[in-house]
């Protein structure tokens, strides 16, 4: 019977989820290499409720969330091991548990063994898919070319940072720490062929757009209020109905 209340309820639940996702985007407005998350709503037609008009009742469900794939602003930092990617390629990392992950966070430092790691400790992979290491004495003065080749001041090639293509990036799970992990743990390390360039001494800032996120907050709040109004009108209607039935009998 109570279809309109449940339709409004399905919207309220979905909007609360969207608020959580939006709050997370805003909280990460300063996270290096962060990509904003968007929720995906779909209508769900209930085929059984064809009693009155034959058209059924559509409920709202939140089917999934996807990645806002736009690039963030590139910020100069001056650190020789900071790298930003300009283009569609991704860095690949090896996590502590041996799992491979992808990300756009190029805030790299050296660990005591001379391996290139992120600030949260994940190892950065080179173009061949092996952990990238640099001679410590030369690390502060390296030059990194647009295609990721790392060379010393004397011109010797020390390695190449891996830039990989991620054609199915929407299917990656998010693991926190700026990491995107493939479902089965090991990814296909396909080299990027779209001409992604490495910018040395810069970081890619979060791609969260302040104005659109705050506007979205307002939209969510208003939609939430509308759904609540629908529930209370339905409630009033029923109250009215009951009281009139009471009068006639």
């Amino acid at each position, binding site marked *: 019977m109570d279809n309109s209340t449940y339709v409004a309820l399905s919207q309220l639940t979905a909007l609360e989820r969207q608020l959580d996702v939006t709050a997370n985007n805003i*909280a990460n407005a300063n996270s290096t290499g962060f990509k904003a998350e968007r929720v995906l709503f779909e209508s769900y037609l209930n085929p059984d409720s064809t009693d009155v008009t034959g058209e059924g009742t559509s409920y709202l469900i939140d089917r999934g969330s996807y990645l806002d794939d736009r690039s963030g602003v590139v910020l100069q930092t001056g650190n020789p091991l900071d790298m930003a990617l300009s283009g569609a390629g991704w860095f690949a990392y090896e996590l502590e548990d041996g799992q491979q992950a992808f990300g756009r966070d190029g805030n790299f430092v050296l660990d005591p063994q001379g391996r290139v790691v992120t600030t949260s400790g994940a190892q950065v992979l080179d173009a061949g898919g092996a952990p990238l290491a640099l001679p410590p004495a030369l690390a502060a003065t390296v030059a990194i070319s647009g295609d990721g080749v790392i060379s010393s001041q004397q011109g010797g090639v020390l390695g190449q940072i891996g830039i990989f293509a991620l054609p199915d990036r*929407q299917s990656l799970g998010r693991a926190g720490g700026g990491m995107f992990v493939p479902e089965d743990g090991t990814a296909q390390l396909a080299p990027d062929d779209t001409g992604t360039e490495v910018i040395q001494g810069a970081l890619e800032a979060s791609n969260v757009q302040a104005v659109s996120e705050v506007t979205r907050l307002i939209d969510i709040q208003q939609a939430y209020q509308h759904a609540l109004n629908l529930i209370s009108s339905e409630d009033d209607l029923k109250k009215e109905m009951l009281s009139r039935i009471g009068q006639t009998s």
Partner: protein
Amino acid sequence: MKALGIAATGMMAQQTNVDVISNNIANANTTGYKTARASFTDLVYENLSREGAVTAEEGNTRPVGLDVGLGVQAVGTVRLNTQGGLVQTQNQLDMAIDGRGYFTVNLPDGDQAYTRDGSFRLSAEGQVVNGSGYEIDPGVVLPANTTKIEISDTGIVSAFVDNDPVPVEIGQLTLATFVNDAGMRPLGDNLLQATVASGDAIPSLPGDEGVGILRQGYLESSNVDIVRQITDLIQAQRAYEMNSKAISTADEMMSAANQIR
């Protein structure tokens, strides 16, 4: 509704950011100070439905999952190890390092600390000490009646004693380098300490490959870029406001839900 907690992590992160920025601004005139930058990453995700889950018997899989992130975390402060400007002081015991490396000083508790601050002085016994009175390592002691000290680019300290025109070599200064400079722990007083993350100090001579040279009569100023810090401060404040907006939106939505009847 997790938005309240999520936005709270965002506000805390921006507070950390403002703390780090204000410390940079406060140290804009500190000799040898290196700009710090707070580094943030997203916190864990709640995977409400998994990517790649099978949706039909024909092997259709879900193309996107439903991931709700739970906020932001500060993972560390990264020091920006670029060269600060060299300021001439004319003081013969002032030294700036042009390039990589740190001076080593002996702490009173027997440990060693490392510094880019090359403003050294003399103790009552003629030892070369830093501003806090900690002796430089390896130690250099000036002979009595020293009239002038010369420090070469490669760290050889020579003293002119009395009116003798020929200088006497009295010591060799060394520089310590680290694999991961960013992993050193700041102690205050312009001192840094080696940690497991930074690796052990690698003793080297000034002018070795990959090591800086010494400039007598100069000090290294801080590498704080004030314009950059102020713009970062403005951004941090706006991000803080956005997070508080998310909190008030969540609050008003819950309040509205409570008032349906």
